[in-house]
Each structure stands twice: as C-alpha cells, then as structure tokens.
C-alpha cells in the first residue's frame, strides 16, 4: 500500500464558526493508494474524537496500526488498490495539524488553551481546502464513524456537489444530552487535575496526566458495551504480576488503567477539551432553526447510514433519524443496523456484513 504522510500549509486561512479566524493553518495528512488520472477515485475518511491522520497501516514496527486499519487497505472494504484514501488530523488535534500544541504564528508562542474553538463544520471547511489542494473536485465518498460520521454528514450538507457518496457510521445528527453529560465528566476530570493550570500547563512544563487518564477510562466504558465487557473480562481477577496499579482487583480495572495511562502519555488535554466541545456542539440542523429536513434537502450524495445494535453512545435510533429525515426530503439513503459486539467502537471493526455493505456501496452507481 503506497502511503504518504505530509504536513500541508494553508496560507489562505480559515474563518471559523465561532467568529475567530486562523490566518494560516497546517493539516497533517496521510494518503493511501494512488489518485487516478481522472481524479475520481478519492475517498476522504474523517477520524473520530481521539483519532488522527494515521488511518491505516503503520510506518514503523513499534507503532500501532492506524485507527481504521481493519477497513482500509489492499483488498479490504475500502480497497487501496482501487481507491486513493485521504485522512487528515482535525484542526485542534494534537497529531501534527494546527492545534493547541502548535506555534501561534501571531505570537510565536504555543497556542495552548488559546487555540480557538473549532467545530465539525470548520473541519469540513478545512478538508474542502485540502481537497482543492489535492486537485480533487469530487470525492467518490466521504466516510467516518462517530465524530467522523458527523463530518461525513456535514460534507454532504455543506458541499453537495463535491461528493458522490457519504458513509455515515455509528453517529447522529447531534450529540445527545447523555453524550454531552459524559463528555463533561471527562472534561471535569481534566480541569480538576492540579497540573491543568487552567489550560496553561505547557508554560509550566507539566501535563494533567491523571485527569486525562480518568477521562479516557470513562470514555472507554462508553465506547464498549455491557456484553463485550462481560466477554472480554468477565469477573476475572488480574494476575498479580501484570497489575498496573496495586489497587486493581479485576481485569477490567487493569485494562482501563492501561488504556487510560497510554492515552494520557500521547494526547493533549486542551485538544481533548476542544474535540469534545466540537462533538457536543454539533447539530446538523442548527443553521435551519432545528429543522433537519430543511438542511438535508441540500444533499445530493447517496448516503449509507450504519448503526450498531450494541452501541449505546450513538444507538441505532440515531442512525434511523438520519435515514428518516433523508427519506422525508427524497435524499437517497440506505440504513442498516448491524450486530456489533464492540459497542460504539463496532464501526472500527471489519465484520463480515459491514465489509460487504461498504464494498457494495462503493461499487454501486
């Protein structure tokens, strides 16, 4: 699989929904496969909250596989032998694109907590500039799950002529009250970490690791499902030698400790807050005073909406809402609810039906 990673500078700047403006910004972009002569085989994949531009494969042995490696690659559901796949790290992220860890060119200091609030629509607008840069006038598909699915939906709304198909997986047209509530607990854990310093931790050379860790532990519970936790861990005790913390009794505790710890090493706390705020703030119908039908009327792309039955963060009924709104305004839209044992995370895994459906959707006229 031909893979290319590139930091692309955009000097034209970007007006954000919040009213703020980035005079220049960078996007860290990774591409897989090759763009054909007609430039009509390009697929944009949008990452979820904690993902980044590394969607597939791995660049070195000790690196983890890309977040959607099960789905993207040679011969996989999104086949890189056929398609040119593009993934960028979202603005406000912490994997190379402009975000709290970048230098503010106006002040020559790190942005830190002062990086402006970004939204799903801002991400889509920045990705539109990326498609112009790459010379792609129409995506074959824009796809993503969770927060990435919101971007795919917003693409179809914001740029109806710029994509043929949208893959909208494990997501909703807006975050639910419960979603916002969960995110707030995560943010509160970070804010109450003494190393957070009201977001100014970079200038104090510290990191609110413990807050990030707690936030991620909660996150993992919401991404999983009761069944998968039962299956994976049951009530098994953690063996004494591999305990991460002395206080740990059960395997599930150890797992959360491990995942939280790892995440807090790599993720940035201000990014965490920005990303979750973007997720909470998204409402596809916002621009039309709450009428989803009104905004969805603009869509010309064909939609594939997939929900997963064990997902309680963005449950199947949220997928069905998208489908019903599409049907109300004559937008072409298929909707399937798959058996996914992995809860919300199911969209990341290449189950048999999921693969077939994505392939069929990509091949369809």
């Amino acid at each position, binding site marked *: 699989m031909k893979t290319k990673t590139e930091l692309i500078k955009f000097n034209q700047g970007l007006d954000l929904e919040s009213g703020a403006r980035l005079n220049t910004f960078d996007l860290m972009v990774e591409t897989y496969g090759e763009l054909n002569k007609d430039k009509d085989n390009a697929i944009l994949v949008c990452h979820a909250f904690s993902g980044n531009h590394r969607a597939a494969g791995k660049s070195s042995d000790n690196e983890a596989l890309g977040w959607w490696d099960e789905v993207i690659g040679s011969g996989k559901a999104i086949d890189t032998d056929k398609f040119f796949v593009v993934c960028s790290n979202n603005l406000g992220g912490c994997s190379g694109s402009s975000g709290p860890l970048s230098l503010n060119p106006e002040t020559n200091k790190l942005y830190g907590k002062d990086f402006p609030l970004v939204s799903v629509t801002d991400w889509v607008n920045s990705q539109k500039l990326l498609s112009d840069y790459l010379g792609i006038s129409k995506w074959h598909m824009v796809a993503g799950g969770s927060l990435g699915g919101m971007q795919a939906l917003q693409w179809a709304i914001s740029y109806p002529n710029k994509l043929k198909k949208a893959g909208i997986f494990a997501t909703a047209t807006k975050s639910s009250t419960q979603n916002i509530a969960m995110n707030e607990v995560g943010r509160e854990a970070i804010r109450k970490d003494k190393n957070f310093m009201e977001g100014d931790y970079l200038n104090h050379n510290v990191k609110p690791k413990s807050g990030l860790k707690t936030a991620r532990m909660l996150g993992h519970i919401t991404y999983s499902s009761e069944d998968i936790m039962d299956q994976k861990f049951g009530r098994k005790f953690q063996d004494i030698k591999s305990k991460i913390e002395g206080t740990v009794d059960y395997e599930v505790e150890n797992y959360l400790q491990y995942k939280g710890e790892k995440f807090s090493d790599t993720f940035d706390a201000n990014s965490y807050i920005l990303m979750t705020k973007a997720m909470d703030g998204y409402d596809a119908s916002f621009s039309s005073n709450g009428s989803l039908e009104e905004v969805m009327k603009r869509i010309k792309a064909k939609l594939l909406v997939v929900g997963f039955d064990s997902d309680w963060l963005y449950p199947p009924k949220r997928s069905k809402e998208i489908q019903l709104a599409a049907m109300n305004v004559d937008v072409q839209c298929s909707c399937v609810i798959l058996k996914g044992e992995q809860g919300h995370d199911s969209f990341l895994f290449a189950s048999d039906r999921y693969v077939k459906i994505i392939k*069929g959707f990509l091949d369809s006229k």
Partner: protein
Amino acid sequence: MNTSLIHIIKKWVPEKSKVIDFGCGDGSLLKDLIDEKKIRGYGVEIDHNKIQECIHKGISVIEKDIDEGIQDFESCNFDVAVMASSIQCLKEPHLALRKMLKLSKQCIVTLPNLGFWKCRLDLAQGRMPVTPNLPSSWYETKNLHLCTIKDFETLCFEEGFVINEKFFLDDKGAKSAMASTFPNTFASEGIYLIAKK
C-alpha cells in the same frame, strides 16, 4: 416476482412518483421503476443478502421488519406503497394495510388466492395446498394469513378501502379469461391497487 406482475405494477405506478416497496427483495422492481419511470424509490427488507444486493444496485434500502416498522415512515408522504407477495406473511395484515394507506396515497398489494381451484382440490383430498404460488409445505411456509380473493375484497370493503384497479393471473402467471371472470376460483394470484375512500 413473475414478469406479468412486474408489468402491471409498472403500469400502475405514476411517473416520477415517490414509492416505497415493503419486502423489496433484491431491489429489482425498484431498479426497473427508477430506470423506466424515474421514480424516487425506497425499499424495506429484512434479509441480509437481499439488502446487500440492493445496496450494490444503488437502491436505497432500509433494514427493517415490516411487522414492526411500517408506521415509522408516516411522515414521508409516498405516492405508492408496494407490498408484493408478503401481506399474508405479516402478523396483522389488516393493520399493515391501514398503516400503509396512512403513509401513501395508494397501495399495491399482491396475494396468493387460497380459493384457487387447485388449492380447493388439494384440500378436498385432505391435504394442505401446494401450488406454484404456494410452494412450501405446511411446516415450512411463512404464510400466516392466507385468504381468498373474496376474503380480501371483503376486507377492503369493511376497512373502507377503494379498489382502484385489480388484475388476476392463473397459475402460469398469465392473464386468462377464466381467471379474470371467476377470480375466486380460477385466479392463482390477485394484484390490487387500493386507496382510502
């Protein structure tokens, strides 16, 4: 679905109308209607492989059990709802028809006729009918509510549905004078275009 039925459905569905096909199978009918009559079509299906085929054909399909989900589409204002060869498999066909006519101006229904003479003959010989139209044995059939042509038309009358069009086929799937004249005995299958009064 046999070709005469498809032909009749195509004739009855207006150009550029909005159509929902309950139990749409592999989406062939919708594909034909989209290609030939420029309809805006949606299918509802429960079978995984058939859903897969619909998506591959580029047909909008929704995974749903018709027994549970007809009313979900009430807001969608369809011109025609199609229920081909599945009304007798539903738990409550009369309620399904009511719901279909709530979401759509008209409704196309096809049904196998238990009054067909070969079925009567099977029954007279003390066996459950097995015909080209009712091919499964009693223990394998998905049919829960079989009826005769007369039964169906009585139901339409009692429910206040208007029969705008009807057509009858013999067991070769063809039009025949006998099936048209004495449908309750000689039609193997009936197809109706119904609406609310």
